[in-house]
């Protein structure tokens, strides 16, 4: 079983994407042996009103909840997020929250942000933060070049001790102590492997050794990225079968109560 923590649906305004509707994404997953994927709508990053993107996403995945696990996108500085959070959980069948402070232009630890993260946490939802969505070195001139730094991750993790977090597309986290607090039954802090490596610097191996298998989740970044590099990393990761199973699916199953 493979569950991808880092998948997306919709149009990216600055680059052509393929396999970015439900049928295309499922075909790409099938071709690569990926059973399930956590998805959010790319449109939620760019629409002023994220909730319209959440509604689109819910309709798109309505026939395949067994494979596509939808996460809401919300902006804590846009009116109505409190109600929309509840709607996403109760009416739209969503299972977690993705936030985009670089695009929605706020600080992760400002008041509204912490309030929204706490509200998501009360629903039992994990909160996902992307260090970047795409590589800023090849950005469109109208795209952001702000990256979420390790210190920002650490600050919000420290400020929200009850919240489980998943970091996506992140580099340089293996030296951070924010993963050290994972305990059975407690909140979990994890990062996906999409920008990590299992050779040379071996950041994946370092994370497993320092913080346990519970600190990593499998993630590809499809359809932005080819999925094959992430699968290769898992193939060459020098770890026992139980560790690989935890990364491939166990950690997310536990977090999302699948």
């Amino acid at each position, binding site marked *: 079983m493979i569950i991808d923590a880092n998948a997306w649906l919709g149009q990216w305004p600055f680059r052509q994407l393929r396999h970015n509707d439900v049928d295309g994404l499922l075909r790409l997953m099938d071709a690569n042996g990926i059973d399930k994927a956590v998805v959010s709508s790319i449109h939620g990053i760019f629409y002023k009103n994220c909730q319209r993107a959440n509604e689109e996403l819910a309709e798109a995945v309505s026939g395949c909840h067994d494979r596509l696990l939808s996460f809401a996108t919300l902006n804590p500085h846009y009116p109505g997020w409190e109600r929309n959070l509840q709607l996403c959980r109760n009416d739209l069948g969503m299972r977690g929250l993705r936030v985009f402070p670089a695009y929605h232009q706020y600080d992760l630890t400002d008041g509204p942000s912490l309030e929204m993260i706490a509200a998501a946490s009360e629903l039992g939802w994990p909160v996902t933060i992307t260090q970047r969505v795409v590589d800023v070195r090849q*950005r469109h001139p109208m795209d952001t070049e702000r990256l979420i730094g390790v210190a920002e991750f650490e600050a919000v993790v420290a400020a929200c001790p009850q919240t489980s977090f998943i970091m996506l597309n992140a580099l340089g986290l293996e030296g951070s102590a924010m993963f050290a607090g994972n305990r059975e039954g407690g909140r979990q802090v994890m990062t996906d492997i999409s920008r990590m490596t299992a050779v040379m610097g071996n950041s994946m191996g370092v994370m497993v050794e320092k913080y346990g298998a519970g600190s990593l989740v499998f993630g590809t970044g499809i359809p*932005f990225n*080819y999925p*094959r*590099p992430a699968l*290769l990393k898992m193939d060459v990761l020098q770890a026992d079968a139980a560790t690989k199973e935890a990364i491939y699916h166990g950690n997310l199953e536990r977090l999302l109560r699948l």
Partner: protein
Amino acid sequence: MRIDVHSHVRVRDGRLSVDDCHSLVDAADRLGIDQMWCSAPAPGAMPEPEAIRAGNDAVIEAMRLYPERIRGECFVVPGWYREALDEIDRCLDAGMIGIKLYNQYFINDPAVFPVIEKAIDCGIFVLDHAGHLMDTPTRRLQPKISDGVHFADLAGRYPEATLIMGHIGGGGDYEWSLQALVDAPSVFADTSGSVIDEGMIEYAVGLLGAERLLFACDLSEEAGVGKVLGANISAEERQAIFGGNAQAILSRRKAR
């Protein structure tokens, strides 16, 4: 056969880091990479000849450690005119197979022409660190990094040169550079870098043809192998990219 045409060995305290060299070969073993073409560029806007030679000495040591796996690319800074040409001779005599340039000069700068002419005389390739950078911090750090437009201009002046534009996955706007290279058939592009944009290999094959693409990692090993394995291209195209084209480039070398 998988030949990574753009790789590096590390220099620590002025010498080859043997541990890093072992790690590179271990990664290659695990990912099915047969050969790595390595350089060790000296950092800085205008590194001194001694530092340049120390980097090349580290590559020569790595070649001796792993003669079947590591082949050398001679790093030079064209602005050190006489020293650069002498260093190319020294490195070729030690068994290196090509020239590596970094971002000290745009590749179509006249200061680079003697190095290009030397490469033509020897029948060897010139691989240049490249990218069309779009973010402010990286662009400030590399004001003279070459992109496809610079390569196309140089190829117009020296169509007989074997030029390799480094790492389309190195972070810049690779579509910009690939578009600029369409009518510069003597320029190859290597696929290295951490960027694994879905469709990038298919796009490059469609625009340039598989015969102008060279597999490479630039130390992003899983990304390098994975994007070529994951691309929806024919087996023949994949084989050409993975090693066939690189072998053909090697056959252009003239006897010394």
